[in-house]
């Protein structure tokens, strides 16, 4: 997982981003409007309580009468009940909007990820995508729902207070709120700095995680190199800057809070002073006020300062939410490099709504016609590459890393498309059929087999979702996986663990063979494993491969001698060209590239095999 998450922030407000974000908010318009309404109501009730107290002071306490106290208490109780209900609505509705929006964004993101071509996955680390789908999506949902709640609540309360204060005593209100503009400016400044500080802390925190990761993964190497001290020094540097940054942020907020309270204190002191004079009738500016009014002013002044810090925080957060939106939407808006044409889609359906009844049967002839290919921004890998393969033929591709073997296979699978020329399946350019049509007829076994967590049965069934248990077992038997599976305690229901972690490499390979076989594909692509597995399993795998290849057009990126030998044709690929072609015997006879490769590499493997057979 990518530890270093980039945190770039553009200062400008990007309206197109917000517009796109609003599209995700649209299904919840009703809830959002309701939220705003409840917020205004909450704000009003908040403003109402001090007015209640003012009434009590002026009418009961000052007059010394208790007439109507019962009604008063009832009204008070009613307000409490209303506020209780408001809070319930606020939290549950805002929370609901949040989780549903996050859900929607993730859903849209995942759907798009299912369509994106491999070129995207080649240059985008999984960790980056994970971060977009998890934390960024979360942040967007939070900002929209809670940000709105806090803003609406804060503003409605402040507006309510201003209205009431101004109508009670305009001049005293102006005096009480004199410091507010200053507070707004200071709050914005500090909140920005605090958020920026937290951002640094988060970045350093992921560096610490990375360092722990490296320290633990590399511990064996560290020990053999006696590098413990050096590592620890470097680690201490990172934790040192973490400490410094964290303390800096803490100090910044420790300065900010007292400033807010002090400014509030100034307002309060002014109210006490001027209001007190007003109560005594000594103040020519504000005139005479009642004790209840003075009390209301004191409460309002304290109440008014509360939301300002919050609102400033939200505005600062909006900036980082925009950055999140930028990243999430950059993913969702990534154009598809491989996409079926509208005509094809109309005829065969798309990946999510295929029209299987329109699909043609696959015969199995494959032809490359003058195919050239270059990875985006990379060198030409294939140029004018032509190849004819008859249905049922087994082709072994041999060559060094980077020779273009994998590219050829990727092109056959249409994970990439040719940049020039065309690839024909049964005589028709494969771009004239849908991607899903091809891939549904394709068996593909990777050199590092990837299993999904779940049982062995689930994993085999991945090849054919409606396979019966009998079909699954038959597939497993065909590839000789049945024996080891039935020896396991839970048999086919054994959990394979995350990424197949609880299985050995050999077992994973057998399961992935069975998965490919159960689909009964016409075309078969095998990227053979180089990793060493125990001899017994290796023999089993070899026989499995033979069986799997029967009757299918297959391409093998081959590493094992026995696999290569059994191929109908061996293609030796160097720099994207076929330099030698023929059977094993033919090629050895040529004493060319294949011969050299053979003596250098394959013999060694034979040696290694003997060692394992002991």
């Amino acid at each position: 997982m990518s530890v270093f998450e980039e945190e770039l922030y553009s200062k400008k407000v990007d309206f197109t981003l917000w517009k796109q974000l609003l599209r995700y908010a649209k299904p919840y318009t009703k809830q959002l409007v309701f939220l705003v309404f409840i917020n205004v109501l909450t704000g009003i009730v908040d403003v109402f309580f001090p007015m209640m107290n003012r009434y009590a002071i002026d009418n009961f306490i000052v007059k010394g009468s208790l007439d109507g106290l019962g009604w008063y208490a009832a009204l008070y109780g009613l307000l409490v009940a209303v506020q209780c209900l408001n809070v319930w609505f606020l939290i549950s509705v805002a929370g609901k909007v949040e989780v549903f929006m996050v859900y929607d964004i993730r859903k849209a993101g995942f759907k798009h990820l299912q369509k994106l071509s491999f070129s995207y996955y080649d240059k985008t680390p999984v960790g980056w995508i994970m971060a977009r789908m998890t934390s960024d999506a979360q942040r967007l949902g939070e900002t929209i729902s809670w940000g709105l709640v806090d803003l609406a609540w804060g503003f409605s309360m402040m507006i309510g207070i201003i209205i009431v204060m101004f109508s009670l005593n305009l001049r005293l209100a102006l005096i009480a709120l004199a410091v507010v503009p200053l507070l707004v400016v200071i709050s914005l400044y500090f909140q920005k700095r605090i958020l920026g500080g937290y951002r640094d802390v988060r970045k350093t925190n992921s560096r610490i995680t990375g360092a722990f990761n490296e320290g633990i993964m590399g511990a064996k190497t560290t020990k053999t190199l006696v590098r413990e001290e050096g590592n620890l020094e470097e680690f201490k540097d990172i934790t040192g800057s973490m400490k410094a940054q964290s303390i800096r942020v803490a100090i910044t907020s420790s300065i900010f809070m007292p400033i807010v309270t002090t400014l509030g204190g100034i307002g309060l002191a002014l109210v006490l002073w001027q209001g007190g004079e007003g109560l005594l009738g000594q103040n020519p500016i504000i005139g005479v006020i009642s004790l209840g009014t003075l009390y209301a002013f004191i409460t309002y002044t304290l109440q008014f300062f509360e939301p300002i810090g919050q609102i400033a925080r939200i505005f600062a957060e909006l900036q980082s939410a925009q950055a999140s939106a930028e990243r999430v939407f950059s993913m969702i808006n990534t154009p598809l490099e491989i996409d079926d044409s509208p005509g094809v889609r109309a005829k065969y359906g798309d990946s999510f709504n295929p029209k299987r009844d329109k699909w043609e049967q696959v015969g199995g002839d494959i032809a490359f016609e003058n195919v050239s290919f270059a990875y985006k921004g990379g060198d030409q890998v294939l140029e004018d590459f032509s190849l004819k393969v008859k249905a049922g033929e087994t082709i072994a591709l041999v060559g060094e890393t980077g020779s273009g073997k994998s590219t050829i296979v990727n092109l056959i699978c249409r994970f990439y498309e040719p940049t020039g020329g065309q690839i024909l399946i049964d005589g028709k350019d494969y771009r004239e059929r849908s991607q899903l049509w091809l891939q549904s007829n394709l068996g593909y076994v990777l050199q590092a087999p990837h299993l999904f967590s779940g049982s062995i049965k689930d994993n085999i069934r991945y090849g054919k979702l409606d396979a019966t248990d009998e079909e699954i077992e038959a597939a497993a038997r065909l590839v000789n996986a049945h024996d080891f599976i039935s020896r396991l305690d839970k048999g086919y229901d054994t959990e394979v663990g995350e990424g197949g972690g609880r299985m050995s490499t050999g077992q994973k390979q057998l399961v992935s063979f069975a998965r490919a076989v159960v689909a009964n594909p016409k075309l078969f692509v095998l990227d053979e494993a180089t990793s060493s597995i125990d001899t017994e399993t290796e023999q089993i795998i070899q026989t499995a491969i033979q069986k799997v290849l029967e009757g299918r057009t297959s391409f093998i990126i081959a590493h094992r001698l026995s696999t290569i030998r059994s191929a109908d044709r061996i293609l030796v690929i160097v720099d994207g060209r076929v330099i030698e072609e023929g059977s094993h015997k033919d090629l050895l006879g040529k004493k060319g590239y294949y011969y050299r490769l053979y003596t250098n590499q394959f013999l060694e493997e034979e040696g290694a095999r003997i060692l394992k057979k002991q």
Partner: protein
Amino acid sequence: MLKRFKLLIKLMRGNRLLYLGSIIFVGLATLLSLVSPLIMRFTLDNVIYEESVDLPVFLDRIIRGLGGVDGLRRNLWICGLALLTITIINGLFQFIKGKWSAKASESIAKQLRDDLYDHIQKLPYDNHVKAETGDLIQRCTSDVETIRRFLSVQLVELGRAIIMLFAAIIIMLYIDVQMTLVSIAVVPIIFTFALVFFIKVQKAFLKADESEGRLSNILQESLTGVRVVRAFGRQVYENDKFDGRNSEYRDLVNKLIRLLAMYWSLSDGIALFQIGLVVILGVYRAASGQITFGDMNVFLSYVSMLLWPIRQMGRILTDMGKTLVSVGRIQEILDTPGETQDDDSVKAPIAGDIVFDSVDFEYEKGNPVLRGLSFKVEQGQTVAILGPTGSGKSSLMHLLQRLYDYTGGSITIGGVELKKIDKRWLRRHVGLVLQEPFLFSKTIKENIGIARPNAGDQEIFEASRIASVHSVIEEFDKGYETPVGERGVTLSGGQKQRVAIARTIINNSSILIFDDSLSAVDTETDAAIRKELKKRSREVTTFIISHRITTLSEADIILVLDEGRLIQSGTHDDLIEQSGLYQRIWSIQSSIEEGQAEDEKPAI
């Protein structure tokens, strides 16, 4: 529980004074915040309404100095100023508290992280072979974070809430007993409610957390397995699977939020009800003249101040439970015994002949890996080791760096018993290249010089040249400055092995061990590297584990191991005469030279 609490206290070592200080200051700040309503009470009751009041002597004197109550009434600004002063001092105390508690908690967190890192590095080799990386990292990061958060915010908050509660109750009792009892009536209720709620809601939190974990697992699996997904055309299936987790998480969080909504609305209701009670009773008593308006204001202010921290306490106390669990998990790591250092170990020069005399080794009792191994290697010789998987080749090599200690017999280097030699000293002089070496996410240059911090560029280039990797590195855009790993180039297995060889030989060790560490390098490069090494020094004793017959045949001694026993040893010429493993591998090689591999393929 108590033990863990003690551990937590122990972690605070060195910063306890800072903590004490910040709790004292938060206490002072709390007391000051209780003073503000008293100033208002005085202003309203005594200055404005001229009620007589008993003031402490020193306050009385001050007020007299200011012209008495009458003087104050004419200069009400003084009361305002007093209020402001209190607020400012309060803010100052808050600042000091914030600064000190941050310093203390961040120092503790740093210390904890450093200790963990240090300790993990010092764990014996065996622990790292068996380590569960994910769990370990989890403990080092999120558990430390849980503790840090508790120490930086919650502990001080807890102190504040307690001080606030006691001080407020005392002052209130001093003003009016009956009002006090009513004012704190709901405190136990709301506290119990909060505590019970947060304990109960833990389960919902846990469920949501687990569901989030499943969601990100599904996502990660689907993304890393994207080739499989596409190859089988399983987009719809994946989409449904993801949607299942996605909506499961959504529903669980939604449920959790509804629980929280219930909690906060109910506890808000209780709090408002409490305030209402104070208002009604206060109004009643003030109207009938039993208390003053200022008194009532004090009660109102205190009640509002008290309720919030008390509602938070439920959460803090449940978090404290989590913190103690984290402390326990971290302590488990720190309690794992590290590698032992013998006091009497020597730092003798590592040179001379190496003698194995009936060496036994077992990882666990009754499961011998090496049995009665005896052989002698002269300084400067090259020893090749051959044997099937599990025959004990690697274990044998690990013994030479004392990554494990042999359990029987003796190994001497230049006559010094290996077990007497200081481990780190030994490792510095015995270069071991692992089969799957780990490169650090630094530049290639830093990686090569990693075990020799003061290595000059020339030494680094020279080492890479010997390891046949110099020209490869030069071809990278940034050459030696190219970073390795996620943010830089991805090196192939062979390139990694060669970089690892370079970083090992730069130390000029007198013993070099290649634990199958040329396996991913092609045969010619393998030979070139060995030739360069010989050219460099004839004094270095070299051990090579390999399957390659060309590599094996050039060694001075070839050892053939099987099931922990030395079954054959000698030179190439000796061994091809004896029937055995070596001969069989050799015969395949020579027969293949004639292009007859198929026929000679040994019967399976």
